[in-house]
């Protein structure tokens, strides 16, 4: 790496010296004290520099002028530019980006950040450079492919024609010879070498229209009847039409344009007596004139089903006599001159030795439609830096823990959220030995992680490990999925690691309901800070702006189910379907971030997978005219942005498993308390909340063992799930307490009574003596789940006292009743 050279351009000697000091251990340095000097250096030795640190305000010639110079001489392709800016120049930063700067560093300099940015830029620029080469190769490949495609197509025709298999290659060769001779005799047609090669290649397609002519006409040994000949003549126009049917993109190809001329007009004659259009003289494109002559010459000198082969001399005489129609005199001259050359070269014309193999490979290529995909790649190039910036932006506001480690600088960088979660700075120097890290991770784990990373290889760059952090009184375990990054220049040199930490578990010393509640409070991703409250007009404008950054932007209302957009006036227009149908799910997402942000009035993010695509979803609490919504923004991640190919499957599995582990009760597989706290409790609408307590679970556990207790719980959940629709929820709230949330409040009392008697009837498979009993209390009303829950809990205790009866109140009834109760 020491061989990479950086040019520092800044008018302040102090600033140059400081940057040099920070970077000199890793790179070679050169300094320029103004833009003019920089341009002078670049004009002579631009290739030496991998990177330029460029100040904006300088005497003589500003940083922008240097950028403009670099643009003009295409120096930015190989040399990255990082702008140095002071905090006051947002406009300048924007302008720099527009002019092709890759990144910017603002004063005051943070030495670690400078090193990291510089090293990252070099890495990414090298990647882009490789990509650029790839595109060039792709273009080359495309030309090769087109040539091959032409050859394949024409040979298919030839095969059907029952011709010698050599006709196409002969015509191609003769066309080339005639054209080369033509430019020597006259400059009338001003043909370049590449045009000659293009016309020769395209000549192979002259008869593709014959594909649609019936076999019996094409292979008829005798003379064709007038009708048959009329049909046969159509092949010229048909071939041209075939090319005309190509996509407009493909029609812009020079090769296709030439082929069109040739197909349509290779049966025209100089005197205007040919077909299909009866063009005359130089109305006929020169390409078609030449191919016509080559076609006729080769037909005469080859054996056909209806005629023997004529000698070269005979053929030339017949053509000169006009027996095959009238040709351009200049071309006849050419034919006469090259006559003997044709004879010689005809014997030597190469054909595809391995035709069927070539055919297969081209057909595969055609099928995978790589042929015209160059432009797509170009676009990808353009979006790469955009993607990078977008990803940086997303990672900054992400509520996942994202990290990158740079081997060269030994610096670990965390995104803002990650740093906060782990109680670290966003930059950590030498993490393995850093005292702050050692405080929260035990040394053995550090060793094993180092070991895992060391074991990674360039061909197997993915690494996964589990790591636990002791933060406060909690031990939080994360599953890490990361990727090692390797140098493209030096074999086996590891440049760094990037990755994500996914929380898989939390342990807490005192696992009681109260503590759990506190813990969940602490663990909430973002404190409910100031949130956005806007009017309709502002909402409309803001969403419009966001739509430029994200692929999709939509709102989810406070029921966490209705999604939609705002209209021109900013009014929320819900769709008919549920928001989870967007993600091709039948149920609400386990990890519903809209519910999370609506309950915490904050932001949350997650990854969602659909088919082979990965989406980054960001939700943010937003009030429009006082109504709460979850503003949901979706960005499709380019595979290259974060995940490697093939690595995705494991990520999907991990995320699914993670959601399951996190939000489903391990015993009963219904939602757990965490799900309730994070997602459910804030749902606000008309609904019913029911609390069910298993009366004798403790007794069963004590007398028959925990096995029997577990079985009893499974029996209960099985019965509960029978009475619950897709839109309702079962939560195991505590050891023996379940919470049901009903979307539909019709017939609730009957349903709950059925549940109670069902459970009562249930006898255990393990212990026939065990009879289960539950107490059920429910409340129907409008409000958050949490507020209804506290009432339902009281109702449940009432039911426990009364026994053998499920009790349900409407919220207003309950308020009257309890108010009356207090008076008594």
């Amino acid at each position, binding site marked *: 790496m020491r061989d990479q050279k950086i040019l520092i351009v800044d*008018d*302040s*000697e*102090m600033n140059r010296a400081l940057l040099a000091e920070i970077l000199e251990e890793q790179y070679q340095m050169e300094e320029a004290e103004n833009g003019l000097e920089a341009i002078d250096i670049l004009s002579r030795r631009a290739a030496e520099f991998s990177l330029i640190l460029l100040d904006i305000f*300088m*005497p003589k010639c500003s940083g922008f002028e240097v950028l403009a110079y670099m643009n003009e001489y295409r120096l930015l392709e190989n040399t990255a530019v990082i702008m140095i800016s002071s*905090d*006051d120049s947002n406009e300048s930063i924007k302008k720099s980006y527009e002019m092709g700067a890759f990144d910017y560093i603002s*004063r005051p300099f943070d*030495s670690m950040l400078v090193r990291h940015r510089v090293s990252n830029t070099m890495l990414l620029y090298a990647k882009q450079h490789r990509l650029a080469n790839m595109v060039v190769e792709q273009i080359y490949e495309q030309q090769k492919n087109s040539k091959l495609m032409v050859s394949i197509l024409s040979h298919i025709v030839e095969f059907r024609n029952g011709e010698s298999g050599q006709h196409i290659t002969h015509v191609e060769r003769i066309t080339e010879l005639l054209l080369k001779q033509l430019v020597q005799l006259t400059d009338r047609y001003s043909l370049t070498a590449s045009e000659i090669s293009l016309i020769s290649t395209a000549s192979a397609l002259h008869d593709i229209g014959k594909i649609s002519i019936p076999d019996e006409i094409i292979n008829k040994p005798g003379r064709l009847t007038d009708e048959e000949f009329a049909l046969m003549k159509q092949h010229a126009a048909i071939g041209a039409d075939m090319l005309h049917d190509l996509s407009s993109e493909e029609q812009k190809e020079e090769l296709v344009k030439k082929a069109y001329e040739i197909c349509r007009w290779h049966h025209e004659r100089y005197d205007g007596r040919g077909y299909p259009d009866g063009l005359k003289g130089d109305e006929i494109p020169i390409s078609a004139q030449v191919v016509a002559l080559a076609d006729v010459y080769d037909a005469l000198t080859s054996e056909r089903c209806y005629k023997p082969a004529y000698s070269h001399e005979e053929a030339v005489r017949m053509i000169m006599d006009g027996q095959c129609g009238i040709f351009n005199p200049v071309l006849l001259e050419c034919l006469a001159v090259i006559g003997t050359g044709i004879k010689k070269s005809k014997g030597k014309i190469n054909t595809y030795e391995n035709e069927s193999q070539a055919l297969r490979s081209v057909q595969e290529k055609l099928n995978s439609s790589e042929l015209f995909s160059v432009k797509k790649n170009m676009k990808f190039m353009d979006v790469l830096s955009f993607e990078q910036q977008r990803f940086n932006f997303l990672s900054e506001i992400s509520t996942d823990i994202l990290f990158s480690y740079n081997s060269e600088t030994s610096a670990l960088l965390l995104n803002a959220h990650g740093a906060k979660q782990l109680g670290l700075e966003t930059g950590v120097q030498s993490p393995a030995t850093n005292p702050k890290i050692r405080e929260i991770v035990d040394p053995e784990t550090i060793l094993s992680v180092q070991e895992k990373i060391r074991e990674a290889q360039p061909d197997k760059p993915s690494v996964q490990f589990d790591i636990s952090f002791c933060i406060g009184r909690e031990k939080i375990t994360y599953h890490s999925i990361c990727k090692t990054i390797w140098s493209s220049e030096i074999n086996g040199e590891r440049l760094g690691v990037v990755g994500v930490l996914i929380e898989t578990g939390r342990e807490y010393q005192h696992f009681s309901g109260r503590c759990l509640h506190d813990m969940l409070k602490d663990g909430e991703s973002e404190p409910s800070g100031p949130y956005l409250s806007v009017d309709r007009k502002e909402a409309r404008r803001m969403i419009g702006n966001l739509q430029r950054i994200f692929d999709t932007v939509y709102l989810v209302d406070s029921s966490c189910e209705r999604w939609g957009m705002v209209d021109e006036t900013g009014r929320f227009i819900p769709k008919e379907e549920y928001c989870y149908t967007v993600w091709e799910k039948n149920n609400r997402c386990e990890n519903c971030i809209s519910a999370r942000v609506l309950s915490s009035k904050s932001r949350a993010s997650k990854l969602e997978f659909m088919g082979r695509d990965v989406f980054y979803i960001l939700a943010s609490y937003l009030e429009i005219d006082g109504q709460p919504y979850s503003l949901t923004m979706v960005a499709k991640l380019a595979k290259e942005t974060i995940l490697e190919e093939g690595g995705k499957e494991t990520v999907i599995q991990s995320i699914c498993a993670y959601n399951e582990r996190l939000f489903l009760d391990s015993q009963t597989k219904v939602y757990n308390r965490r799900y309730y706290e994070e997602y459910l409790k804030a749902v606000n609408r008309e609904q019913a909340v029911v609390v069910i307590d298993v009366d004798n679970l403790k007794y069963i556990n004590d007398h028959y063992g925990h096995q029997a207790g577990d079985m009893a719980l499974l029996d209960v959940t099985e019965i509960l799930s029978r009475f619950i629709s897709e839109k309702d929820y079962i939560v195991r709230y505590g050891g023996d307490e379940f919470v049901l949330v009903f979307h539909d409040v019709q017939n609730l009392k009957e349903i709950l009574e059925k549940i109670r008697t069902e459970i009562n009837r249930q006898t255990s498979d393990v212990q026939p003596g065990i009879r289960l009993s539950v107490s059920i209390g429910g409340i129907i009303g409008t409000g958050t789940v949490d507020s209804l829950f506290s009432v339902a809990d009281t109702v449940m205790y009432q039911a426990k006292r009364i026994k053998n009866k499920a009790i349900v109140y409407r919220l207003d009834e309950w308020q009257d009743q309890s108010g009356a109760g207090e008076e008594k």
Partner: protein
Amino acid sequence: MDLKSCYLRLGGDYDEVLGRLHKESLVEKFLFKFLDDGSFRLLEESFANGNHEEAFRAAHTLKGVCQNLSFTQLYRSSNEMTEFLRGGTGLDAPELLAQVTADYRQTVDAILAYQTSREEHG
């Protein structure tokens, strides 16, 4: 006098600069280098010659240097000067110039005092 008290004296933020540059030796090196920095002199000269463009550039450079060294006090006045010059074409700001000059003197004095105490104590 140690580095920290030198920073205290010149109205700077020592913890901030150490947090960025990480090495005390580096901070010290550039602290001394500041004595050779010509941007303040250029600012004075430009005011004397009535060269607005040069004055703006000098103030801007001085501000940048102060930012990098966490010279908070001098940064504040040189920033104000930069903004004043960025806007118009005039150089009529005797109070601002006096403030920058006073802050510059204080900074240089503190550095010189620190230098002396370093030399005395080896």
